[in-house]
């Protein structure tokens, strides 16, 4: 809980993703998550037999959380599948709260890899994604 550790920030809220390519589940796709707040951190995941993947929340701490410093966590998600690379998510998280985007719930996405990413204002910031919010 953030109030127990005022230096703690959620740099990535939990996300549940369903990956498809041309309507079929993207099984065994490699998902590369990059988070850049204090410094860049990269981790890797693999989708299951239904194309589903859960990305856990990520937390970091910094003294800047208790000082007048603007919070910006830069996020991107790339998917490698069948020898192609797809950039499905770019987002600048502007609120250090966990699940602040969906009022306390995880972000649920359905991502068709053949769709083109589009930019829209969302969550009091902006997101570029080829995914649909469900």
């Amino acid at each position, binding site marked *: 809980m953030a109030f127990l550790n005022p230096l703690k920030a959620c740099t990535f809220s939990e996300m549940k993703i369903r990956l498809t390519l041309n309507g079929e589940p993207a099984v065994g796709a490699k998902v590369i998550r990059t988070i*850049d707040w204090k410094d860049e951190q990269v981790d890797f995941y693999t989708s299951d037999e239904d194309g589903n993947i859960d990305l856990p929340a990520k937390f970091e701490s*910094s003294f*800047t959380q208790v*000082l007048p*410093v603007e919070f910006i966590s*830069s996020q991107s998600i790339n998917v490698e599948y069948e020898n192609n690379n797809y950039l499905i998510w770019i987002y*600048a998280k502007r609120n250090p709260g966990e699940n602040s985007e969906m009022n306390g719930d995880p972000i649920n996405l359905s991502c068709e890899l053949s769709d083109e990413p589009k930019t829209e204002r969302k969550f009091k910031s*902006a997101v570029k994604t080829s995914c649909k919010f469900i």
Partner: protein
Amino acid sequence: MLTPQYSAQLAADIYLIKKPNDQEIFFDLYKDDFDIKENLPNKIQGKTGAFTLIKSTHAMGIATCGKDNFKGQAFVALKGTASGYDLLTDLNAGIKRFHTGGSVHQGFYYTFGYL
């Protein structure tokens, strides 16, 4: 026409200029209003921090001309404090004489000296 709402939104969005991925979002949001290109070659680089070794060089803002609805207008947008390095610049709060004759914040003087 530049409205107060538009200016306030730009002041919030200019923080997207710092990281390369977020710059892509900034470009998408403002490409119809500003004379900008992908990868934002006209972004302003600056250096914040303190002393010689505790420094960070990064994109600080953008200077560009408007187009279409904003034709004939110029935009200079600079981000504020977004890291410990920027905070050190804020804390360098001495007074420095600027070459035009005025007095300026010493930390900003050095940061703008790098722009």
